[in-house]
């Protein structure tokens, strides 16, 4: 078990190193001179020189990369050129919106998909199964931002159940915060729930064909008991993979949904920084998102080992 964890941990560190190298290369090396990119073609030579010094562009590239990585490890994400504030402070505010939104959506997706998938699998080929599968076909095809616009139209503008946009802030209380995140979370979650339902159903159906399910029936377990006691845990392995992927999709998906609901999350920060050509902010936020994705995949790997004893001993 320890060996398995250490191996996954090593792969986590390696992935982070490679990812940071890619991001650094794209942002700081590919455009040539980041300073002139950020200031545009009409920049004064003095301003350029000053910005270069400020960004530390006068040191060799390798040194710059190490400084950047070293800074992030100590919590220093650099200073925004446009806002003149530390990036870490700006990110902290924004992440308090984006991360809860992603987790809220993930929870909704799981809460919908598990019962729906189990229901469909246990009624394979019957009307209930066909109904669920038809609904998932629609759900999978739904673009989340378009669905978000429709939700706003119906539930915010016509029915006035939820705010059409903006974020109340966590200082107004948990309920107020969650209420402003509910429509965005539903918009994000529903298409993902459709995918997860399909995965859950097919994983269960695959497991139902396994020999040990027949063995369980021969012991005297009913079909339902067999499904719950022997099927579910074995079906979790493909389902966990998809849950891991969904988190990264949802976390990145908040970037778009925030545009529809005018939420002050990471997405708005990124778009503001892109239009302001503030590469330092873009670089750090992208690294942060990638870090979150890699970390989640690490936890998914640990969850595999918890579910499947073969992984624990094989390593």
């Amino acid at each position, binding site marked *: 078990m320890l060996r398995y964890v250490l191996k996954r941990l090593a792969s986590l560190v390696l992935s982070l190193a490679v990812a940071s190298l890619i991001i650094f290369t794209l942002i700081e090396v590919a455009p040539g001179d980041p300073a002139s990119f950020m200031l545009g073609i009409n920049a004064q030579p003095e301003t350029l020189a000053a910005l270069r010094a400020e960004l530390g562009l006068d040191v060799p590239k390798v040194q710059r990369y190490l400084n950047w990585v070293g800074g992030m490890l100590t919590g220093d994400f650099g200073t925004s050129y446009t806002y003149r504030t530390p990036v870490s402070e700006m990110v902290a505010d924004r992440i308090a919106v984006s991360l809860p939104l992603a987790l809220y959506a993930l929870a909704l997706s799981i809460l919908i998909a598990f019962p729906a998938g189990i229901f469909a699998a246990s009624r394979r080929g019957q009307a209930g199964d066909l109904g669920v599968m038809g609904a998932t076909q629609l759900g999978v095809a739904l673009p989340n931002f378009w669905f978000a616009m429709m939700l706003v139209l119906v539930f915010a503008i016509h029915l006035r159940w939820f705010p059409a946009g903006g974020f109340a802030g966590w200082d107004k209380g948990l309920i107020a915060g969650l209420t402003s995140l509910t429509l965005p979370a539903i918009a994000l979650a529903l298409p993902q729930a459709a995918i997860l339902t399909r995965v859950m159903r097919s994983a269960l159906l695959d497991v139902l064909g396994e020999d040990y399910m*027949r*063995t*369980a029936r*021969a*012991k*005297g*377990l009913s079909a339902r008991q067999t499904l719950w006691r*022997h099927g579910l845990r074995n079906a979790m392995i493909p389902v966990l993979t998809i849950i891991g992927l969904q988190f990264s999709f949802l976390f990145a998906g908040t970037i778009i949904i925030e545009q529809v609901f005018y939420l002050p999350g990471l997405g708005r920060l990124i778009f503001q920084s892109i239009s302001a050509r503030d590469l330092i902010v873009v670089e750090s936020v992208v690294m942060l998102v990638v870090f979150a994705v890699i970390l989640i995949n690490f936890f998914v790997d640990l969850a595999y080992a918890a579910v499947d*004893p073969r992984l624990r001993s094989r390593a």
Partner: protein
Amino acid sequence: MSLLEIDRLSLQIGNAPILKEVSLTVDPGEILAITGESGSGKSMTALAIMQLLPRGARSTGTIRLSATDLTALPEPELCALRGNEMGMIFQEPMTALNPVHTIGRQVAETIRLHDPTADAEAQARDILTRVGLRPDRFPLSRYPHELSGGQRQRVVIAMAIARHPKLLIADEPTTALDVTTQAQILALLKGLVQDFGMGLILITHDLAVVADIADRIAVMRHGEVVETGPTWHLLRTMQHPYTRMLFEASTHQVNLPAPPPPTPLLQVRNLHRSYRLPRTRLFSPPGQFDAVKGVSFTIMRGERLGLVGESGCGKSTLTRAILGLETPQKGQILLDDTPVGQDPGARRRMQVVFQDPFGSFNPRHRVARLITEPFHLLSAPPTGAARAQAIAEALTAVGLQPDDATRYIHEFSGGQRQRIAIARALIIKPELILFDEAVSALDVSVRAQILDLIADLCRTYGLTYLFVSHDLSVVRSVTDRVMVMQAGEIIEEGLTETVFTNPQHPYTTKLLEAAPKLPDLRMQHSGDGSI
């Protein structure tokens, strides 16, 4: 009155008839063997008794267990009977256990399910001890993947008999196991029947397995019971021609021509092949598995050499090394003094026939393209009329029609596919053919035909071959000389008849004793006068 009475059971899945008016009985303490080739309906009979039939199956007739008609019982009552009054063991021990639960939990589940107040854990420990898995060596906390195939089958048996059912059904319980393990499992089942007074239905395709332990035999074909009776009586009289055919095919002897005077063709010298094992501990060096450890032997021109051994003994690795599919770490393989390896010159002189009649052909190609694949080895492969001629000749040689060249592989039966595989091996007229478990996947009647074909080809083409198999009786009938392999080494080699009648190595003796044998009834037969 019998424990189990099946009366005129017929079964249909969709529109396909599976069973036709099957009637059988089993008494307490009795072992009934159901035997027959694939598609005979023997497994469906078992599933019908357990009432675990696939969807869309419809049946008529009755199945009475202790006078209760199972076909009329509602599902909850059937659940109460399964595992309690009747248990079942399946063929594939590697997949029959839930991989994510411990063996203790899986055995205890049967007990707890039918008796919630029982000390399930203690009972599970007892029953695992009874099937030969003592908790001090095999703790209840073991997972299935930590056990071998034979040990897993013992766990499956423990689960099935934990509640001392009156009826136990074993569907090919030893087919996936090695002969020595098979003998142990059969002995265990026999002992359990005596101890518990259970009725046992033993389903198998192998007549030899049951001849020894069954009280009665039922022979099935195409969903019908063609003959049934007490074992000795049935084997002695064999009223039905199909029973006779099965028996003869199982003990089939082919007629090999005498080999020419010995001149070496293939020489294997001190061959080694090992694989790295994954590390088991973090800081210890990775282990190493020696699949083949210093093997040396020679195949003479025109000789039929056998290679027998149990799974994992290294015979597959050895075969692959000879074919150039594996690179040995040490040693040499010489074909007429030329090293075999990537050299096409040597490779075109050898061909192979594999085990699986379904997996050895690309389903997207026609027979002509399939069997001419070895032409790739020739510097100037025949084209046009010469190619067509070669295809026709190869197909005719294996008993097929030249027209078959334009058909796809799925249009052929398992036996025909094995003929096509032999045609593919013959088409470039190799000097040596490797038969790698080439008849192991076939029904006995088809197997007998393929063995005859091989003997015919020996006569017409003077074949030299290495026949690799786990099946001792087959090797005995088609080889002149035999080698026995164990744990990566050849531990005995000699003339086939000598080795089989007078084995020198204790392992060979053990293998021969474990192998199921049909009684030699030929004498009684001819003296019987009834045929």
